[in-house]
């Protein structure tokens, strides 16, 4: 029972309280880059979910299987980024075969997942927090859900912003940041949920 409630806490915390975008500031580049349209945002979200979950799982195994026994934890950054880079290549090949249209619309952002700090960040946080293997994977998956939530909310707002009459200096990017600030303020309301 304890285990399940612990997992639930991790889930709520990953989606709402410590949302990757609004509280941890990870993955801001794709958050701003692909959030112009709802469907590309969703596609990017799924690609991130897939890579993030698997990268965290593999990272966990390699960290405790290789780095810790050999006492070379300082190699963590280099190893994790290699795992992520090769996974991204795999996703790219699979997507190219399975869905041409999704591949075309995600286009240049797929290689950019490699430099999506959310993925490396989540994998590193899972190690830092001393999560068990199951908790790490759950944490990674639901962090990605939090990312999808953030990117979808923002894409919806941005579609409306296109038609809004915004003061000139605030056009495009600055007004995007201001909206993100208001969204992030709303997400802070969740912070009492999990200690």
């Amino acid at each position, binding site marked *: 029972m304890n285990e399940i409630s612990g997992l639930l806490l991790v889930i709520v915390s990953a989606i709402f309280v410590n949302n990757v975008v609004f*509280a941890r500031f990870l993955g*801001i580049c794709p958050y701003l880059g692909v959030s112009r349209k709802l469907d590309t945002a969703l596609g990017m979200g799924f690609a991130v979910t897939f890579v993030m979950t698997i990268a965290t799982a593999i990272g966990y195994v390699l960290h405790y299987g290789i780095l810790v026994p050999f006492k070379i934890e300082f190699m963590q*950054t280099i190893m994790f980024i290699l795992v992520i880079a090769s996974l991204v290549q795999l996703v790219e090949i699979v997507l190219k075969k399975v869905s041409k249209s999704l591949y075309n619309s995600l286009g240049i952002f797929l290689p950019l997942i490699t430099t999506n700090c959310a993925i490396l960040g989540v994998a590193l946080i899972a190690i830092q927090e001393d999560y068990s293997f199951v908790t790490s994977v759950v944490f990674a998956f639901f962090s990605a859900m939090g990312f999808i939530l953030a990117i979808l909310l923002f894409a919806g707002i941005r579609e409306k912003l296109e038609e809004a009459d915004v003061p000139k200096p605030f056009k495009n990017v600055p007004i995007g940041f201001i909206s993100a*600030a208001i969204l992030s303020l709303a997400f802070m309301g969740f912070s009492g949920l999990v200690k």
Partner: protein
Amino acid sequence: MNEALNIFTRGFVRENPVTKMLLGLCPVLAVTTSAVNGLGMGLATTFVLLGSNVVIALASKAIPNTVRIPSFILVIATFVTIVDLLIQAFSPELNQSLGIFIPLIVVNCMILGRAEAFASRNGLWYSIIDAIGMGLGFTFALLLLSIFREVLGSGTIFNIPLVGEDASTILVFALPPGAFAGLGLIIAGLNSLEKKMGDKK
């Protein structure tokens, strides 16, 4: 020499990585709660950028095109590990407050972007200047935002108090929403400043 100056100022003002190109925003938003953190992060990133630009400018001819990106990332990751270990050894406090964002320098898209767009196509000398210009531009943007947030959010600057002990500060600027709002306001401010300067000419 003119060309060198041109490359240098381009990174600093016209193509500032943060305010113009919107690259490497995660650390910009995350660590700018105090000016010390902002400066530390900016200098650490500049060091990595300089190291990776130098190595990539020298080695780019030897790297096959197909494995270009993974090789660049490995070079960057190596320099990030060096910086990480140096900060851990010499400034545990900075290490504490920057936390996970030190290893995350490796995925700062600005660094990979410069490696791909500049260092792999230009000579050593220009790559060094490009790295310094871009790095200082990045540091400058970090400093601007972190001073803005520290003054409004905590009432201090470089940890020196500006207002009395019991004065109330706008706490929200020290919290995540303040980072987004602050950066939005700064970019808007720079936009309108640039427009005014343009009008005068």
